[in-house]
């Protein structure tokens, strides 16, 4: 599903440049649930941004579902993001003047799906995350866990190939974190490919594979016995 070869990325900081990713080789199969771990500054967010086509790579190659991701203009990148990827952010990033259903329907709107169908689908995904009754509520009326569940429903709505979650539990207490992880595991059980960036070991243990990043290189890549989040809920 994801194929990365010899990936380099550096940032210019004034006169000197900062080499963040120093040759990453990495691939993800369909249906995997991968945790990317590392301390801050290890390059894990940069890797996720490149995977999410939010940032460009300097060197190397990136293939997503057989499509080479290279030299995209903004319009093309937007199309690919919409078609291939669903994002889950640490700070939820819901649009605060749109209600839960409208937020979930946004990616479908950008796919030019009709209004009625959009609403139906959005409601279906909200139901999956258990928030159907909250469809008409604004983000400000939801708790943190509810917001993240709306964000997950939104990421799912466009039926992407890969879900990218950047510290999805970073802003939540541990009980809510486990609820969110339980949801992510269920989505993964249904066959979706998910990448989770985290620095919390207990969250990483709930994935099926852990990739450790340190100073821009992968230092460890191992399959683990998945801890089910449902037992904590």
């Amino acid at each position, binding site marked *: 599903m994801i194929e990365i070869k010899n990936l380099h990325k550096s940032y210019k900081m004034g006169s000197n440049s900062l080499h963040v990713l120093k040759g990453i080789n990495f691939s993800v199969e369909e249906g995997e649930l991968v945790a990317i771990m590392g301390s801050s500054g290890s390059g894990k967010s940069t890797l996720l941004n490149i995977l999410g086509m939010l940032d460009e790579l300097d060197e190397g190659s990136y293939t997503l579902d057989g499509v080479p991701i290279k030299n995209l203009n*903004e319009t093309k990148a937007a199309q690919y993001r919409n078609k291939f990827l669903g*994002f889950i952010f640490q700070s939820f990033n819901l649009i605060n*003047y749109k209600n839960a259903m409208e937020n979930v329907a*946004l990616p479908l709107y950008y796919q030019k799906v009709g209004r009625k169908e959009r609403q139906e689908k959005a409601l279906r995904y909200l139901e999956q995350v258990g928030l159907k009754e909250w469809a008409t509520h604004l983000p400000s009326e939801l708790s943190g866990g509810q917001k993240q569940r709306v964000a997950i429903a*939104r990421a799912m709505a*466009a039926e992407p190939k890969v879900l990218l979650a950047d510290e999805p539990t970073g802003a939540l207490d541990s009980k809510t974190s486990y609820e969110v992880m339980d949801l992510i595991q269920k989505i993964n059980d249904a066959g979706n490919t998910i990448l989770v960036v985290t620095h919390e070991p207990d969250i990483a243990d709930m994935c099926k594979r852990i990739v450790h990043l340190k100073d821009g290189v992968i230092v460890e890549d191992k399959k683990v016995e998945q801890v089910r989040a449902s037992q904590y809920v």
Partner: protein
Amino acid sequence: MFNKDRWKEIIEVLTSNLFRTILTAFGVFWGILILIILLAAGKGLENGIKSDFGDIATNTMFMWSQVTSKEYEGLPKGRRFDFKVEDVTALKENIPNLRFVSPRNELDGFRGENNVVKGLKTGAFNVYGDYPEIIKQDPMIITLGRFINQADINEKRKIAIIGEGVKTALYDKDEEVLGSYIKIQGVNFMVVGTYKKKSNNGDGEQGQKEIFVPFTAFSQAFNQGNNVGWMAITANDQASITSLKAGIITLMKKNRKIHPEDERAIGNFDLYQEFNRVESLFVAMRLIAYFVGILVLISGIIGVSNIMLIVVKERTKEIGIRRALGEDPWSIKLQILMESIFLTIISGMAGIIMGALFIYGVNALLEVIGPVDMFLNPSVSLSVVLIALVILIVSGLLAGFIPAQSAIKVKPIDALRAE
């Protein structure tokens, strides 16, 4: 562009900080209001002055004989002369594009001496010997009877058409006017019609106190021979009288044996030139109105542009999210542009409506207090409203352009990081 979601979003964004939106809109509202009021005031002045011209044929010049100022072919300077009836024919034959050439002789009434008698009443009036065409050059409304016709000219009938002012001065209220006789310098003329002139300028009253008789009858009754004192010459619409004037005067100088360089012998008044001078004044006024109005509008537009920049700044993160979810950058740009255009058009329309109400109020006021000198019916035409709308759309585009550009200039990754 016309889908419901986009409009819903525009409304949501603009109403999320309503007070700020209204303040911003006020700048554009004010600019358009001032533009409309200035244009309407200019139009009112134009209408007022043009109504003073009345329906007079403006492509007309008047020409009369004065005193020569140069010797020529043995004739002395300081010589008095008259045009002759054959000059009228010569003009019609030699100068192309002339519509009417109306010769006129006159007895002055305003020098004070009473020259008209009717029974026991007397009065001093201007008496003109005229041709039928004069009514097309100096329009009047025939209120009773008829005007001079060609048969009157041919048969030298002693008939008269008198103004409403003459009628009030010489007749009792219920007296029969048509068929009665008045005595002009001792000669009896039968009244066959009365007229009223429309123009309401300074000498409006004077205009109602004139008496028209057939040119030929006048010449015979008052011993003018074939002299002509005065001519009203109107050109066809395709040629301006101003361009024909030199030819006319040269021809007259030749026929009347006047030195070709004698500038004083023939007096003339070019109505067309005067009219054009006034016309160019109005054009200048319109230009000034647009200039001032648009300058005021520009400051409003800058306000809109400014606020759109702030809105974009505030929404940087939202724009980042939307791009991460896969919205086309052009769609975001379009969104910002439409918000800006929508805001300018709405506030501009409010300005146009307010301006229309203001004009309506002024007109109502004018109706109550009666006509004001040189000001009549201020208004703006539909074309002005359309021009204003075009200005608004263009300025909305301009106002939104820089903010829209800056909205998509930020990379989605940077926009997402923004707080």
